């Protein structure tokens, strides 16, 4: 997709500056409603989720002690996967956002929480809460989901190595927790700096992250399997832990892809953001830069209510259990101001996001112009582009554009 300012029809063109500020006022009012009614029931909710998650984790780990017995292996693995997902999504992510800081409970607080993930809470809070939530979907500023390693926008120049992008994305999904840790450290950027010139801050963060990874791996892959040794369940327990971590990684990766990546979610140009973005302008960017997943209560819980990604991005510090309640009001506001409330089922959003990954792994226009009939020719063109130099690529790109124009003329005529 093209950044919003380069689109033929800018979806915000019909909004006057007054509209934008009015949207800000109305969203602030929605937020205030929740703040005013936040209380005992919300506190009971998060405590319950934490309680259930811990019991589920302990129960699953206990069952895995005898995981040489296949039903125990299955039960324990499923339980541990669910527990890890709950811990990362509905608890960790949201607690670290400060959604529960108002309770003043030092045990459920953004400044003290550490989550069951390779990345450190501090690193995550910086890269996610500060960078991603502040600069949401600004190409070049928002590092979320591989903007560093992937082509996420037509305006990014295509290189042959982008052909591997679907594969990188899949590998990233499997090892997502390490991918996140690497983003948090800005590993790519920092490793380019010669060793002796790397900043103290980076070295410190890298040390902390490595220490965390070591502890996490020791727990899941050494100590817990060893506990199962007496029943001959070392290997099944190890496999269960690996599985649970991969399942959690694939799930979180999918949910996060759904949040900002499906086709139709807007991205923004660095230069299009005013130096002093108003609250209204910031709100509008969040409204257009996020996508929701529709589904059951259980699905909302398992996504950490990131299924309400739009609401989450508008109000990242509201308790997650209240997003469902504000969603209809937010949707009504989208309708009122003629903006597109991007919502679809999980399979549709995941499919759409993957479609975009594949489409952008190919030169602009290639996927759209390819059909069964012209496939051989298109493949040949692609291989020329993949192997040729810059000049060859530019010429081939021009051919693709010409083809696209011709196809659209034919379509119009028909």
């Amino acid at each position, binding site marked *: 997709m093209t950044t919003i300012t380069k689109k033929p029809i800018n979806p915000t063109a019909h909004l006057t500056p007054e509209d934008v500020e009015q949207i800000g006022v109305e969203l602030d009012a929605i937020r205030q409603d929740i703040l005013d009614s936040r209380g005992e029931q919300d506190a009971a909710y998060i405590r319950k989720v934490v309680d259930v998650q811990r019991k589920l984790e302990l129960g699953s780990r206990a069952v895995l002690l005898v995981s040489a017995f296949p039903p125990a292996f299955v039960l324990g693995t499923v339980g541990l996967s669910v527990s890890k997902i709950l811990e990362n999504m509905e608890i960790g992510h949201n607690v670290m*956002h400060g959604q529960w800081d108002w309770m*003043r409970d030092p045990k459920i607080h953004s*400044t003290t929480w550490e989550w*069951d993930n390779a990345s450190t809470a501090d690193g995550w*809070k910086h890269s996610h809460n500060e960078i991603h939530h*502040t600069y949401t979907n600004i190409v070049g500023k928002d590092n979320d989901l591989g903007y560093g390693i992937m082509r996420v926008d037509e305006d990014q120049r295509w290189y042959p190595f982008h052909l591997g992008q679907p594969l990188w994305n899949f590998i990233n999904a499997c090892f997502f927790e390490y991918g996140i840790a690497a983003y948090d450290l800005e590993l790519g950027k920092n490793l380019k700096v010669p060793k002796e010139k790397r900043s103290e801050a980076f070295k410190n963060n890298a040390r902390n992250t490595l220490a965390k990874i070591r502890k996490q791996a*020791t727990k899941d892959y050494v100590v817990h399997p060893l506990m199962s040794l007496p029943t001959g369940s070392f290997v099944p327990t190890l496999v269960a832990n690996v599985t649970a971590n991969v399942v959690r990684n694939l799930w979180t990766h999918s949910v996060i892809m759904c949040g900002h990546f499906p086709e139709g979610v807007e991205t923004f140009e660095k230069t299009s953001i005013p130096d002093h973005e108003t609250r209204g302008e*910031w709100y509008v960017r969040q409204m257009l830069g996020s996508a929701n997943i529709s589904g059951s209560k259980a699905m909302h819980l398992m996504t950490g209510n990131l299924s309400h990604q739009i609401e989450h991005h508008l109000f990242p510090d509201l308790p997650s259990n209240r997003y469902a309640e504000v969603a209809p009001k937010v949707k009504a506001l989208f309708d009122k101001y003629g903006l597109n409330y991007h919502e679809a089922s999980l399979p549709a959003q995941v499919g759409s996001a993957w479609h975009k990954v594949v489409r952008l792994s190919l030169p602009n226009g290639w996927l759209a112009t390819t059909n069964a009939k012209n496939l051989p020719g298109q493949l040949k063109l692609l291989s020329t582009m993949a192997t040729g130099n810059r000049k060859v690529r530019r010429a081939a790109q021009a051919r693709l554009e010409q083809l696209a124009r011709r196809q659209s003329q034919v379509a119009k005529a028909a």
Partner: protein
Amino acid sequence: MPRTTTLPFPGLVSPDHRERPLRRLALGARRHAAAVAEALATPLVPADYLDVFAPLRPGAELRGRVVAVEPETADAATIVIRPGADWVGHVPGQYLRIGVDVDGVRQWRAYSLTHGPRADGCVSVTVKAVPDGAVSPYLVHRVRPGTLLHLEQATGEFVLPPSADKLLFVTAGSGITPVIGMLRNLFPVADSGVVRLPRSADRDIVVVHLAPSAPTSIFAADLAALDEAGAIHLVSRYDDTHGFFDVADLAELVPDLAERSTLACGPAGLLDALETHHETAGLPLSTERFRAAPVVAGEGGTLDFTRSTTTVESDGSTSILDAGESAGVLMPSGCRMGVCFGCVVPLREGAVRDLRNGELTTAVPGETPPTGVPIQTCISAAAGPCQIDL
């Protein structure tokens, strides 16, 4: 030649050769078990899991469970609490800080213990509901048996002086609570009535108790019973029957005032007046205050960054983040717009206003957590003088 080996725990020195290997083994085993438990629980700690099942166990953070709520008057109740295993006990007259979740928000308040050591191992406090109070109405009217509370160990200097036998207690309203704790300890009440113990045989005690009216007076019946049994001499003054109390009347009510050590607990006005009176008369006085000077929220104020030893004047519309930074304080920050919580620091004392909705957050030492109240500096402005732990 005597040899002593210092074990990894300071202060643990084994003098006996035969005992040493065994004890070392036991210590080593315990340390290893702890290390394994930590490795199993990371990134949490084993306590996080144990708390799910046994919040009152030894080694846990100090907590207590409400066992009973006994009404005393229309707006006061005694809360009986079973404290966690690590409760070390108290001296009557001392108080207990209680962390209670009211409307989901953890609030800390101090309450005097209203008894001596109890046979059932429970502790009790008696709370008077302050109109519009955050915590006291909750404890009096809403808290239910089974509720988990957070506790600190008992503390306080307002206890019986060991030497003085001739005492005067001046209490007003709920200020009776620490005093009733001391009196109950001196004079336990059994089925047969007030028990006289050797430890209280020589005490000569006068209690001047003030309250707006007899029915609103907590522990009025207990005081009357003690008076009847001859344990104390009670002078009750009710505003509605006797008119407002004036400290100058004290000499008349207690003729041997000069021979007594005075312990007083009640509203600030009374205690201030008593302090002046006793100072002028050169008499010993010990007081317990229930309330520190209230925070008066203003517009703007002096920001005192305690660890950076920087102070800066700030108006009511500048964020503390901006004010601190412009004064050269190394402020943590992130989005600068209230979404990331990268700028949270503890407010030790004072009041701040949320720049988005005007909401006030206050920190009062002794009431809010000892570590301070976390505030987001980027969306908070000073609303009075503030002490910030940075």
